[in-house]
């Protein structure tokens, strides 16, 4: 039997104070990011904010700096420019701007004009363009809000059916913790909030809840065996230790695939995979260090047998 870890008896609950401080720090950043989204001040991708993306390649090499100077120097001050790694297509770039129209002219056309004028003699081949009008951005935002609302509602109903009140609340806290922490880290990394990032956050919420559910199931099972007084903390600790190898194995396989997407999946999926990678690490941490300690704290304050 090959085992990463043997029978462990780590006092996870004993580390909860440190864990709470760490989580609080990340949560503050996460809540800050969330507030910025509510106030419409976050770094929204063009799918929510509306805007124009063009992607193409030059025949001869150019520096990303010169492209950036040309585009930003022509009035697109909020332009973001990215170099791309493409198979057999060198000198590929993505240019994103928040405008869809400039002086009645398509922003995409204007960008092409700027590029052609600034790099005359070095032909730019357009591979893709995406123009999202502000009205479409608004409705995508609304759809994303609905998707978040429905999945949160669905999960809370599910938790309510499967668990008692306390563990339901604790599981919800752990899930929100994970999503907010990832949101905060993405903000620190200056990533744009796009449809795919929201998708990753929702997927992550499901994943993180799964992890919590597995631990809680075991706590519930073990509580039937250990009914003595003062055994609550020990039982929770024992349960976490018992499912630890599962937690690590599943995190490992999930992490493997998202890291692979991060490396090989290309530009489209990069931020999506990044959010999931961070999310799986945070989700694993929270199922051990947040979800269970929360019910332990609660039980300590107002003792009531955990169902």
């Amino acid at each position, binding site marked *: 039997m*090959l085992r990463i870890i043997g029978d462990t008896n780590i006092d996870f609950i004993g580390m909860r104070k440190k864990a709470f401080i760490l989580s609080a720090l990340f949560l503050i950043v996460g809540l800050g990011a969330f507030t910025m989204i509510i106030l419409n001040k976050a770094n929204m991708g063009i799918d929510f904010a509306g805007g124009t993306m063009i992607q193409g390649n030059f025949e001869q090499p150019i520096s990303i700096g010169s492209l950036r100077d040309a585009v930003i120097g022509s009035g697109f001050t909020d332009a973001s420019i990215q170099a791309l790694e493409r198979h057999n297509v060198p000198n590929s770039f993505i240019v994103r701007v928040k405008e869809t129209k400039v002086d009645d002219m398509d922003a995409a056309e204007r960008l092409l004009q700027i590029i052609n004028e600034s790099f005359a003699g070095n032909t730019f081949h357009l*591979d893709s363009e995406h123009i999202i009008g502000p009205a479409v951005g608004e*409705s*995508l935002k609304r*759809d994303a809000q609905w998707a978040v609302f*429905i*999945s949160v509602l669905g999960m809370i109903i599910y938790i309510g059916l499967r668990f008692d009140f306390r563990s339901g609340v604790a599981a919800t806290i752990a899930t929100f913790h994970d999503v907010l922490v990832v949101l905060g880290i993405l903000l620190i990394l200056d990533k744009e909030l796009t449809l795919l990032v929201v998708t990753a956050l929702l997927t992550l919420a*499901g994943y993180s809840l799964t992890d919590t*559910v597995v631990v809680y199931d075991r706590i519930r099972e073990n509580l039937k065996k250990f009914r003595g007084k003062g055994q609550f903390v020990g039982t929770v600790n024992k349960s976490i230790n018992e499912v630890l190898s599962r937690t690590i194995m599943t995190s490992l396989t999930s992490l493997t695939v998202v890291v*692979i997407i991060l490396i090989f999946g290309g530009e489209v999926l990069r931020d999506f995979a990044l959010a999931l990678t961070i999310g799986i690490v945070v989700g694993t941490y929270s199922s051990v260090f947040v979800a269970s300690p929360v019910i332990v704290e609660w039980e300590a304050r107002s003792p009531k047998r955990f169902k």
Partner: protein
Amino acid sequence: MKSQTWRFIITGILVILGFIGFWNTLRLWTMSDEDKARMEERNPGSINELEKKAMRLGLDLQGGVHVVLRVKMEEIEPSAREDAVERAIQVIRNRVDFTGVTEPIIQKQGDDRIIVDLPGYTDAERAEDLIGQTAQLQFKLMESNENATLLLNRIDSIVAEIRKAQKESGELTDEEPAQLSTGDSSPLIEPDTTAEEDDILADLLGDDTLALEGEEGAFLSEANPLTQYLDQFLYSSKTNTPWPGYIVMAKDRKKVENMLNMTEIQSVIPSDVQFAWSTRPDVANAQEVYRLYLLKRKVQFLGKYLENIKLGRGQFQENTVDFRLTGQAAAAFARLTGANIDKPLAIVIDDKVESAPIISSKIRNDGQITMGSGATLEDAQDLQIVLKAGALPAPVEIIEKNVVGPTLGSDSIRKGLISSLVGLALVLIVILIYYKISGLIADVALVFNIFFLLAVMAGLGATLTMPGIAGIILTVGISVDANILIFERIREELRTGKTVRASIDAGYDRALLTIIDSHVTTLITAGALFLFGSGPIKGFAVTLFWGVLLSLYTAVVITKTIFDLRKGYKTLSI
């Protein structure tokens, strides 16, 4: 019959169904380009048929154009609004059918939006023209030259006054230098007019700009802010009558437009006339130019009466669109053209002038739409298509446009394929190393899982997108969790000293509830994303949903069936 036998039968049926669902996709995906060419040679159209039956690829994977239109309800009568979107969809479908795109998606979204997906079509501009134009064809007469000249002079003086006032108050610096060059000072004439007519024209018009040169020009440009950019070109040679059709250099068009759009100017343009630009630029005297017309607003004849619309050739072998009229429409058109011989008749599509030929004789049955020298064969074909398909019931605006080139699509497929295969291989290896023979059993289940997933997707006609591929890979990572839960439980049971058989059974029993619990949460997320996601996101939701759902069967039932194959376990490789 024992439950074991049943499990075999059910799994067998599922595998067969899977192959049926996935067969065409599998055939298409495993074919090389030469195979495809050979198949097409043997049986033309067969590849197309096969592609229709195989799994759909999203625009992000195969390239194509995605356009979202908004029907401008506010611009039509309330009574016509009810089915305007449906009628617009019908018209757009007709137009798209003419382009030969194999599997277009044209559907309503919300109250007033239409989604148009053209897989494999990458000429975005042409697609936009075809889909986006209302194609309201109207025939209009032109304002008389006398009235036009009066109006232009009035506009000149108003603009000049405003400019002067602005200059005095310092708002306008010397941003508007004299634009006159020698190129502007010679009249620009259509290729078919002769030099002799040239002079007549100059004499007739007494056009200031014709004689302008040097400093005098600079001075006059201040007095003629508008007309300095206009060169009259349209006149009837038979009657020696000029008509208000002007050449404007392409570079000056914006300036002219801005002037005409000023509120002060809008208020002096009589309500029964309108300025209208040519549909597209053409070349005159080696310069790119547009043509500007002053039309009478009244619609004389509507394009919907046109029949038998086809491509033709004009007097100078240029591309034209020919049509036929019958019955009352023919009579009306004959009346219109008969009463206006030697006058220009503007052919107007969506408020842009296609051309303004001079009527030479009464036209009853057979008409011809000339398109100006700037039109290509493609332009003529597109005009024919939109006239045949009919006008949109309301104007539309493009509110989203996504064009993905074919190389980008194949690039994405490549990336998706690499990440899927590497991700799958790594997970299979990790599980195999960690759980030995039991791991191998889980690996078999995982392969079944992916196979069933692809089969369901193909069978349901779901669309595979790049995020969808990510969903498949993610399914691999997440669905193996069920086996991990089971195996870890079996290991625990073994450690308590139970027999192998009892441990396996207990492992499955105890883990089952947790597995269902943990999968439900992912299904909820996938469901919400499916309901509200669009395009690529929906593709992700579909693969995640089915992947996780199917894994409940593959990871639990299929692995248990394999474990149960062997009786009397002494040891277990786990």
